[in-house]
């Protein structure tokens, strides 16, 4: 089964790279591993008969956003993170906050397990569905995006605009403020 083999190959890369993103001391490596994880995900999208989503993933995330990430990491020359340099007095390291974080993590785990069980309930793989041919079609994708999901689409773009304006306001220095 070549499909199964390819699926496990991409999944292994995606999972390993994502895990290593967190484990790296050098932020440069984290960025690159994230790109690898995004690439592997895009391979999985191709297997799901969604080549457009796969390519959009590469163009937008790996091609545009990650280049900016890399740029920032490179220019700030972010140092390696070593355990000895951790700030023990940081407000986020208070025990109460830690417990709250652990609670959130458990919630996320339960949610994921629940979602995976629900997925199992849907038996047929995407490729065998009757509308499999239209899932990958760019025209169909555009039609659905601009008819059924117009509100979500426009709301997302407004959200991104707000975030951009926010970033500009935060980064801007008033006159006299050094």
């Amino acid at each position, binding site marked *: 089964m070549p499909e199964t083999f390819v699926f496990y190959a991409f999944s292994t890369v995606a999972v390993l790279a994502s895990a290593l993103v967190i484990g790296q001391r050098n932020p440069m490596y984290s960025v690159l591993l994230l790109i690898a994880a995004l690439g592997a995900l895009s391979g999985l999208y191709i297997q799901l008969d969604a080549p457009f989503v796969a390519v959009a993933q*590469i163009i937008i995330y*790996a091609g545009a956003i990650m280049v900016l990430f890399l740029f920032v990491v490179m220019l700030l020359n972010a140092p390696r993170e070593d355990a000895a340099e951790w700030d023990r007095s940081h407000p986020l390291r208070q025990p109460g906050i830690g417990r709250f974080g652990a609670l959130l993590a458990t919630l996320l785990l339960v949610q994921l397990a629940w979602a995976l069980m629900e997925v199992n309930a849907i038996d047929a793989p995407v490729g065998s569905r009757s509308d499999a041919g239209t899932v990958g079609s760019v025209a169909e994708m555009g039609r659905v995006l601009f008819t059924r999901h117009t509100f979500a689409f426009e709301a997302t773009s407004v959200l991104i605009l707000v975030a951009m304006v926010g970033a500009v306001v935060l980064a801007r220095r008033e006159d006299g403020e050094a």
Partner: protein
Amino acid sequence: MDLRTAIQLGVIGLTFFMLINASALLVLAERKIMGFMQQRYGPYLVGPHGLLQPLADIIKLLFKEELRPKGADKYLFTLAPILSVTAAFAAFATVPWGAETTLFGLLDEPVRLGVADVNVGLLVVFAVTSMGVYGIVLAGWASNSKYSLFGGLRASAQMISYELSYATSLAAVVLLAGSLSLREVVDAQADTWFGFLPQWYLFLQPVGFIIYLIAGVAETNRAPFDFPEAEQELVAGYNTEYSSVRFALFPQAEYINMATMSAVATDLYLGGWHGVPFLTELGLGWLVFLVKVGAILFAYIWMRWTVPRYRYDQLMQFGWKWLFPASVLNLIVTAALVLYFNA
């Protein structure tokens, strides 16, 4: 494995082989044409008329010592050239270079000349070429040298800026053809107007074609936009610290990218393998394709040895204030006309 599958695999291998050789031949062509333009012979000693010069260059580069600066990042320094050349090869994966052929009736089912045919082929080319910038940026960063870092930074800024105009000029062609598959775009240009003028998108998209070519030069980091390696300012830019095979991979990636840019331009604007009816009927349309690609490549080299390098701020001004608005305007006008004539 049946015969057709075997031949299809052979075609894929051939595409790879042609790309490798394209980079070697382009180096030779570049030096020969440069010599001609500067009224000298160019390489002349190895083989007849210097034809074996690329082979000599490759052997020389293979046996050079591989140096790595002390402060360089061990892994990324090695990874960067590999990334560059991998992205360059992968970008050609969805570019068709000939019509589907049965090899003069040998096969029942036709094979396609090209590696893969996907319905979002044009986007794949765009996505993979945009990954090529990582190789250069990482080379600049991992070398731990100021010249390399500046080269890498310039490369990323330049490629991000010109990618916009590049993609927008592609979008106008997609509107005309109504498809993202390169093969369908080529076949939409098969007919002629008034019986003699081929229906190439060059005639419908003259502005788009010029924008594509200019942005293509900037994307492949060639003169007059070769800031990432501007010799007078940065020694050799992002590849200053590289030697031996690791160094050789960067120019190889650059030349393969040039070939890809030219092949895509041929598919999008020059009708691909169409244009000489009797050759197309014989199933030799790919010859027409190669000639067209060669013509664009010649123009690339011609430009490099004719036009002096811009200044860096001029490059950014030109990209953002002229090229990008022009490409957006081109897209809007094209969209309006397509709507008008289709309605």
